[in-house]
Structure formats: structure tokens, C-alpha cells
């Protein structure tokens, strides 16, 4: 059982608050992705779990052990670093065997496990090479094998794929996901790449300026962003945000259209809707917007159309056989059940 529990962990570097009171639980065998923009504290949180950094306040538990006072080696974790950290003076074989030798595993068992994990990562041909003789992708594989070989309860990965080129990254993504799904480890995976996060995670924890703003399944994060920030951060093209004037009784004026929303006191809210959740229709219905097309970007499978609706920008995804050109007026019908509302603080209103 290797459930990770992070309790009110905060971290200050001098005057910088890198983390404000973080609470997070990662279930046994779960694949959790920490997603957030650069500088939001992902690495710091991961290093606190690893024991490479000490939290200013708070507790870290792995299973039923409190580990925040323990050295990294006593926590039952393995870590994969962004720049791989493959030991340059050791062969690939010895790199993978390193952790096993430290825990005094028998030589025959070491050999078995090195060969097995190397096979899993397809580097069994490279065992006698040194890190200097490997490509970035191969080094990455060594780093992952080295972490897997010790069969840790917890694997921590800090942007492991960010130094690889796009194609290799996609390939490794799939491979890593399947390998980690088969192993019994609990994984925390840090990335700033939302596609990586969405495609790999059981659960995504979105970080923003030292806080976790939402931690839930990829689909839920996408469909029901807890805050305006999450909505704007996830999704490409990004979510549309439009001003909504409160008319009372749960009715709003959005870009000249009367729309039903939540009952709320504020004079203004923001309506949020994803570009693919807006239909362009021929007939004008109640709650539809009139948009003027500014830019049309054909992307093969679909068109990405940027419109202006009452002086506000709104992106719409249209079928690629729709014929539109800049200057056209289009009728836009948002899908009612996909519309979300946010208040002035950026919190979701229901």
C-alpha cells in the first residue's frame, strides 16, 4: 500500500512562497499528473515528496509512514529527473543496477532485474554503453529503467519527456503509460504539457502559483474547470470567456442574447464555453449570438474560426466543409449544457 498523503505542505524560499498549504492524496497505484505553468511549484512539491527539499511546514505520508523527516533513500521512492541524471562513469547496466547494489540484492537477482527492465524499455542492446554514447531518448530510457529496477512503491517523474523531440515524446508517452499501468507503483508525474497530462493521467492536479486549484479526472478537468484559470489553461484552442450582465432571476445578457444561468447576486458574471461547444446554425434562435468572422484557420479535420461577438473575441470550431470567410456574419449557438459560469474571483458559479 503506497498511498501518498500530503498534508498542508508549504514551502518558502526566503521571501518567495513557492507553495501555499498543499493538501493532496494520491491513491495506491494511481497515476497522478501535476500540471501547471512553469514556476508554479510543481518541481518543489515533487522534491518535497522525494526528500530532496524540506517543506517549511506540513507533513508527507507514504502508506502509513510519515516520511518528511526521512532521507530520500528511506522513503521507498525512485525519481526520474528532467535531465535524466544518468551516471556518466557507469555503463547502462551499472546505472540500472545501481539502486539494487545499494540495497544489497543478490548478483543473480540484479542481473535478472536489469535485463528485465532494460527489455521493458527496449535498451537491452545498449547495456555496455556509457551515457556519452547514448541519444537523449536512450538516456531517458535508462533513467526510467533505473527507477523501475528497484521496484519502488512510488515513482516521481519531473518533466521526463520535455527534453525529447515531439515525435519521440509521443512514442514515449504511450510506452511509459503502459509500463507504469502494469507495475504496482504509485506515480506522481510533473509536466507543463497539457496533452501529456490529459493522455497519461488517472487524475490531474492543476497547480497555479503554489496552490492546487483542481485535482480530478482529465475529462472532468476539461468539462468542469473549477476556476477560470483551469478553463483557460486546459484546452487548445482555449475556452471562450464572455461577459454576462445579470438581469436577475437567473437570466443573463450575453452579447445581446438572453441566456439562462445560475441565480447569483453579482451584477456581472463570465460565461465560459469551449470552441467546439458552439454550433454555427443557419437559423437564429433565442440565446444565439451574432458573430463576425475575423480569421479562418483550416486545420484539416476542422476549421478554427475566430469571430468577434459584441466586441469580444470568440473562437469556434467548425466542420471543415463549412464555407466561411472573414467578414461573414455567422449565427452561433452555444450548447446550453456545456456552458459554465465564473464570478469576478474566477471561481465557478453553479
Amino acid at each position, binding site marked *: 500500500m503506497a498511498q501518498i498523503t500530503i498534508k498542508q505542505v508549504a514551502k518558502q524560499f526566503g521571501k518567495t512562497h513557492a507553495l501555499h498549504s498543499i493538501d493532496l492524496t494520491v491513491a495506491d497505484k494511481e497515476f497522478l499528473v501535476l500540471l501547471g505553468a512553469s514556476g508554479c511549484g510543481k518541481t518543489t512539491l515533487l522534491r518535497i515528496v*522525494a*526528500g*530532496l527539499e524540506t517543506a517549511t511546514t506540513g507533513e508527507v505520508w507514504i502508506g502509513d509512514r510519515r516520511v518528511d523527516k526521512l*532521507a*530520500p*533513500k528511506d522513503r521507498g*521512492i*525512485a*525519481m526520474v*529527473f528532467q*535531465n535524466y*541524471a544518468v*551516471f*556518466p*562513469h557507469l555503463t547502462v547496466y551499472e546505472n540500472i543496477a*545501481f*539502486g539494487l547494489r*545499494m*540495497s544489497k540484492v543478490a548478483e543473480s537477482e540484479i542481473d535478472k532485474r536489469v535485463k528485465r527492465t532494460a527489455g521493458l524499455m527496449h535498451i537491452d542492446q545498449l547495456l555496455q554503453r556509457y551515457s556519452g554514447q547514448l541519444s537523449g531518448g536512450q538516456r531517458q530510457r535508462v533513467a526510467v529503467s*533505473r527507477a523501475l529496477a*528497484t521496484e519502488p512503491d512510488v515513482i516521481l517523474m519531473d518533466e521526463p519527456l520535455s527534453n525529447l523531440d515531439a515525435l519521440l515524446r509521443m512514442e514515449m508517452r504511450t510506452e511509459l503509460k503502459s509500463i507504469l499501468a502494469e507495475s504496482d507503483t504509485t506515480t506522481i508525474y510533473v509536466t507543463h504539457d497539457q496533452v501529456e497530462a490529459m493522455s497519461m493521467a488517472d487524475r490531474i492536479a492543476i497547480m497555479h502559483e503554489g496552490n492546487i486549484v483542481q485535482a480530478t479526472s482529465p475529462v472532468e478537468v476539461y468539462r468542469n474547470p473549477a476556476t477560470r484559470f483551469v478553463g483557460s489553461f486546459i484546452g487548445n484552442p482555449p475556452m471562450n470567456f464572455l461577459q454576462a450582465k445579470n438581469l436577475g432571476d437567473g437570466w443573463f445578457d450575453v452579447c445581446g442574447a438572453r441566456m439562462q444561468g445560475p441565480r447569483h447576486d453579482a451584477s456581472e458574471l463570465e460565461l465560459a464555453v469551449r470552441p467546439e461547444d458552439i454550433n454555427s446554425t443557419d437559423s437564429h434562435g433565442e440565446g444565439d449570438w451574432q458573430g463576425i468572422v475575423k480569421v479562418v484557420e483550416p486545420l484539416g479535420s476542422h476549421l478554427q474560426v475566430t469571430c468577434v461577438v459584441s466586441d469580444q473575441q470568440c473562437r469556434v470550431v467548425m466542420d471543415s466543409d463549412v464555407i466561411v470567410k472573414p467578414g461573414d456574419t455567422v449565427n452561433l449557438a452555444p450548447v446550453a449544457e456545456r456552458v459554465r459560469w465564473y464570478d469576478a474571483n474566477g471561481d465557478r458559479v453553479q
Partner: protein
Amino acid sequence: MSTESTVVTGNQRIAKWSVNISIVFLCLWVLVPIYLLIANTFSSPAEVNAFPKRIYPSFDTESVRFFMNFYGVGSALWNSFKVACLTMIMSIAVGAPAGYALSRFEFRGKNTFRVLVLMTRAFPLPLLALPLAVMFIKVGLDDTVLGLAIVHTVLALPFAVLITFSLFSGVPVELEEAAWTLGCNRLQAFIKVIFPLVLPGIAASAIFAFVISWNEVFAAAVLTIEHRTLPAFLLQSLDDAPLHLKFAGGAVLVVPALIFIFMVRKYLFSMWGIANR
């Protein structure tokens, strides 16, 4: 595009030539004295004093042989060797941990400390010599190999600290951290990962300390009487020796130092942040 880059304006040409001339001049500045020293060392005494000079030495080893058999040279050489080895060991033993600390930890006064380390080289030794001699006599360290080695260690230490600092800084922290997560404590990680990676550089730094001690003459002359090192011994006894012996003595001093410096030049460059190779 390509023509533009190949056209060399007059100014550039002058700049290029002045660089070339400076390089040649500097090389001659260093190489000519060394050549004369070596050439004269391997000439017979008669040739050394003769005029005009030959371009090539006659490879006569008489001066060298005479010099090596000169009374006191052997023991001075042996003293030099002992002092230099001690200096080497002590300066690494003290300097490497300091370099490691500088590269790995943030602490108050770190920058001040780094400047101070360098400042010790700026302090004039002659000013220090007399009080030091008095102090050494009091504690019984005067005229001993250990006493002189301590002074030489002080001289070599700034270099040991700075070279090892640059060595340790060149090893990514992640390697150490990876070792920690794989089951090492700090010491094990150092022994298994950091040490093998910096070993060649440590050796170079040690050799550099050796050379500093080997060549040091002032402290050696002031602090020793019976147990002179070679430079101090030569200073004292070669003053009115014949010319060919001076050359031989000079060569014995210079050649090992040259060889050593040549071996460690890569690390000296990286120490000053120029290039790594």
C-alpha cells in the same frame, strides 16, 4: 551573404595582424628563455662560456652530472619532494571540502569567503615571514619539513579551493540527488558518484599544489636552515657558482614544474571559466 563575410576590411586586417604578432611575441617571451636554459644545461661548461653560441646544444651531460653530485643537492631534492608531497596532501584535504561546500551549499558570507580565499594570495609573504619565523621557533616548527609544508599549503590552498570548486560545480547536482534516491546517503553518493567524476581534476589540482611548493623559494629560504628545499638551497649556494651550474640548477627546478603545468592546463583554464578543453 557569403561574399560579405569573406571581405576583410583594412581595420580587421590590422587587428588580425596585431593579434598574431602579439601571440608570436608572447610565445617567444616564454619559449626563448626556456630554450636557452635547456640548451645551456646540456652544453659542456666550456661551451656555456664560449662565444659565439651554437644553435644546438652538444648534449653534454657533464654539468648536470656535476650538479647532481654536488654536496647537498640530493638532500635538498629529497626535502623538496617531501615538502611538496605534504603540501599536496594537506591542500587537497583542506581545499577539496571547502570547494565542495562552496559549490553545493548556500551560506551567509559565501561570496566574501571566495574573495578572501583569493586575497590570501595578495598578502605579501615577506611581511608575514618574520612573525611566522618567530612563531615557528616558539612552537618548534622552524626548520622542519612539516612547518614549511604548512606555509606552502596556505599558498596552494586558494588554488585548491577554486579548482575543486569549479570541479564540483561541473558535476550536476541531479547526479548526486539521483544517487540519494537510489539508496545512498550523502557520503556514499559522494564516494560512488561525485568522487569518480572529479578524480582526474583532483589529481590535477594536487599536482598544481605540488608545483607551487616545488617552486616556492622565499618562505623556504626564511624558514629553513638545515633542511633546505632545492630552490632555497640553490639560492644560497649557486649565487657564486659557475654559470653552467646555475643553468643546470635552473633546469632541474623548471622542467618538472613545466611538465606538471602542462598536464593540468585544462583544469587551470576551466578554473578561470574560459574553456573546458
